[in-house]
């Protein structure tokens, strides 16, 4: 998994690629919580276009990020989920819990 950050005024976009599994979810968790809890960035976007796979530990990190953002009064927004990631979100019944958009333009305009 690789994660790159694009920071702008009031928001950060994380471009994530590869597999978010047991080996790599701690890296994503650390990045997410750093922006949300420590820097208190108002909007954190996750561009998941190039995520091939996400497991339950990755989902757990997203849920932790979501709870942290709710506590901080900020937003965690996901976009460009492929079929594999969408399936896992549906299995977890989280697709309506998270803010999810089809692409970056829609996400940024929300």
């Amino acid at each position, binding site marked *: 998994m690789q994660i790159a950050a694009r920071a702008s005024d009031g928001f950060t976009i994380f471009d994530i690629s590869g597999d978010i599994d*047991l080996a790599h979810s701690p890296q994503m968790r650390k990045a997410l919580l750093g922006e949300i809890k420590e820097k208190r960035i108002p909007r954190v976007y996750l561009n998941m276009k190039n995520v091939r*796979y996400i*497991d339950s530990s990755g*989902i*757990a990190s997203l849920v*932790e990020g979501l709870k942290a953002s709710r506590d901080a009064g900020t937003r965690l927004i996901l976009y460009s989920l492929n079929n594999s990631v969408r399936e896992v979100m549906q*299995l977890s019944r989280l697709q309506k819990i998270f803010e999810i958009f089809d692409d970056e333009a829609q996400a940024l305009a929300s």
Partner: protein
Amino acid sequence: MQGTSLTESSTAKGIRPSEPVSSDLLVRLQMHSNPDALCLVRATVERATELLHFHETQTRAIVRSVDEALANVIRHAYKGKSGLPIEITCKKLRVDRNGAPVTGLEILLEDSGVALDPAKLKGRALEDLRPGGLGLHFIYQSMDEVEFSHKNGKNQLRMVKYTVPANTVVKPEGE
């Protein structure tokens, strides 16, 4: 625990496990309890599903189940310690359903970690929004048969997925 047998046979979809007509070894892997090796197993299992002509959605479900089961072994049975042995065996099954042959993929995971009580191996309620507890839920939702046991000092998890869903009535040829 040697010599004892602790088994919970779970028919994930409420279907009685099928007796195989034939069973052929596809691949047997040995790995250590290292999370970095999970991607190798996922790739191998994906190829095995392709050999058996599973649909893309079924392939993702099988790969997800094996990955989640291995993650559970690493996290719970081995308590996060790396370098401990796990064996993965994939077999092609052929079962007879109403006189018609149905192909399945059987995956057997074995580890020598802490024996877990199958009665406690329940995923959390999905309504409970908190991290963790989803892996088992994914496995039960994805596989046709899920069976935990503890035999000869080893934890075993047997999972089966059929190319034709287990709750589908298959008509014999000619009907």
